[in-house]
């Protein structure tokens, strides 16, 4: 996406974040049908159509600079949003390589990377960063490799070590999360990490997902979409900061839901890393207000129906209980009962 960056928009306090009409059209709606239930909806992370959020390995959009600034604010207050166990250093370097190579290849106007053996030269023009360093030598970077590179990328990153037939959450940069904590989940196995998710364990979703991911192959990344809702365009909805944002849920009414309530979609990508044999789990968050959503008639009808019929356990787990009805009421006038075409495209 080549749209101009909006460096000054905010994800806290005055919440000036907005989507341009182009950003709305490319929003990754996660509902191909009018109702929703979990599935192992994993697909190859192949390049999507030009302009779509999956055109490239890592999407850089109009919010890039603002999201990187927001990340710095979170990290300044809570340094533990980045953590890495010592044995994850080679995975950190692998992840740095993946992100830098992808950005430089896909957005040559914004980023460039030149490599001469282990001597690397990285330029990030939007953030005005230039760095020469020795790949593999952490002393030549101002921060640990994942910490360094994730501050220059949108979305969260978790590195999972593979051993003993499991994936272990042992490094990460997590500042744009939907109410989960890296600090709490560090060292957990794949199923422990996903322990709080209702219904999915009974459906054996995690057995199948784990088995699939243990065999994830080099050069064959996969992706899936997940979703929830967030009151105000707040990226950092962490358990640590619950007092700051939890109360927002009580502020939603059928009158203000259009501007307050946002669909929060995660584009999750998974890559096998070459030297470490670890897996990187990227979680990229997209926000869309109900008023922005309603500019696409098909999406307004669909989301109205999805929310209206959502399984009670999911309403609860996704934290929608207090305001789901208000959102359904706000969306109702946009749903005249016309059938929707299948798939997620605007129409």
């Amino acid at each position, binding site marked *: 996406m080549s749209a101009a960056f909006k460096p000054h928009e905010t994800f806290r306090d005055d919440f000036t974040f907005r989507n341009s009409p182009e950003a709305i059209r490319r929003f990754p709606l996660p509902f191909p049908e009018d109702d929703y239930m979990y599935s192992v909806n994993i697909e190859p992370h192949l390049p999507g159509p030009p302009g779509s959020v999956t055109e490239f390995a890592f999407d850089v959009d109009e919010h890039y600079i603002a999201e990187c600034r927001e990340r710095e604010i979170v990290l300044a207050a809570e340094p533990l949003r980045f953590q890495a166990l010592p044995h994850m250093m080679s995975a950190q370097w692998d992840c740095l390589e993946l992100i830098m190579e992808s950005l430089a290849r896909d957005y040559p106007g914004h980023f460039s990377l030149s490599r001469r053996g282990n001597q690397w030269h990285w330029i990030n023009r939007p953030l005005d960063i230039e760095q020469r360093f020795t790949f593999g030598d952490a002393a030549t970077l101002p921060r640990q490799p994942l910490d360094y590179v994730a501050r220059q990328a949108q979305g969260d990153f978790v590195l999972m*070590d593979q*051993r003993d037939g499991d994936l272990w959450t042992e490094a990460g940069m997590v500042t744009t999360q939907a109410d989960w904590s890296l600090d709490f989940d560090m060292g957990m196995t794949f199923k422990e990490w996903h322990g709080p998710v209702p219904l999915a364990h009974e459906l054996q979703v995690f057995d199948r997902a784990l088995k699939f991911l243990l*065999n994830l*192959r080099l050069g064959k990344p996969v992706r899936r979409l997940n979703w929830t809702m967030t009151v105000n365009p707040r990226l950092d909805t962490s358990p640590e900061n619950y007092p700051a944002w939890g109360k927002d849920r009580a502020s939603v009414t059928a009158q203000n839901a259009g501007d307050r309530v946002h669909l929060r979609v995660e584009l999750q990508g998974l890559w096998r890393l*070459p*030297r470490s044999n670890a897996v990187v789990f990227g979680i990229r968050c997209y926000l869309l207000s109900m008023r922005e959503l309603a500019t696409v008639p098909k999406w307004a009808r669909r989301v109205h129906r999805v929310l209206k019929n959502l399984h009670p356990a999911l309403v609860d787990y996704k934290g929608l209980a207090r305001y789901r009805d208000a959102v359904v009421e706000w969306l109702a006038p946009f749903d005249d009962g016309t059938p929707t075409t299948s798939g997620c495209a605007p129409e």
Partner: protein
Amino acid sequence: MTDAEIIAVEVIGIEQVTPLIKHFTLAPLAGGSLPAFSGGSHIIVVMRGASRVHRNPYSLLSAPHELGSYEIGVRRMEESRGGSHFMHDAVRLGSRLEIAHPVNLFGLDKIARKHVLIAGGIGITPFLAHLEDLNYGTVPYELHYSVRSPEHAAFIERLRRRAGDRLRVYHDSEAQAIDVEALLMMQPLGTHVYVCGPAGMIKHVIATAKSAGWPDSHIHWEQFSAPPVGEAFDAFLARSNVTVHVPPDRSLLESIEAAGVEVPYLCRGGVCGFCRTRVVEVDGELIHNDHFLSDADRSQGRSIMPCVSRARCRSLVLDL
């Protein structure tokens, strides 16, 4: 994995390192670098012979940080169905082969406090790559390498250079044997053991470790089975609506592929579980040669790993 994802390589080095083992160096035809990998990874080498295609897994023995070429060691198998004979007899300097991206089913445990590596014969190859990573780290290790006789000690110079006094070599010809029991009795807590070699050696190490109280999570092994020769049989692929004939010296997976039906695979050696296929119906007996299916899976008779397993049957119907 399918053949669509292969990398074309050229053989740029061949060395007969023991009477039975040849050492091949493979460089990308397109130039540049091959994909980075981790120690313990293997590749599938696709060999297009005159009458048939062989696809064999070989561990990468070269250094994971040297990506201009990959190195593999190939032992001539006595009862080869042709793959190792093809590599030994038909492949020359400049021959072109195809390989698949590396896959690692035998990585080192990154939180181990010590590694004990046990190799028999050609089973040394994955450890050669491991040594590169180990020498960067601070975790102690020891390598025990058992061979028939000094002339069969493949890669011994390289091993001595990399492992120094952490290497111990045992010659059958001099009645030297690894005392696995003594070795595993005296290791510090947090040690992991890795074994790669003949089936008997792997079984012995696993059994000894278990009886000495080692947890399963600390015992690692890799053994690629060559698909065994067996009786001919027929399989009907229900979704594709074709019958394939499986001759004695060809695997079920190879026969299915020859019929133009794709089955996803990773190791082709009965280890990874990727090619697991549902058995719709069998009138006869499944002969499981894999290391993946549990005893419960086998007794149910609903799954087969076509890379190495066969059937002795009047009919076999697969969900393919």
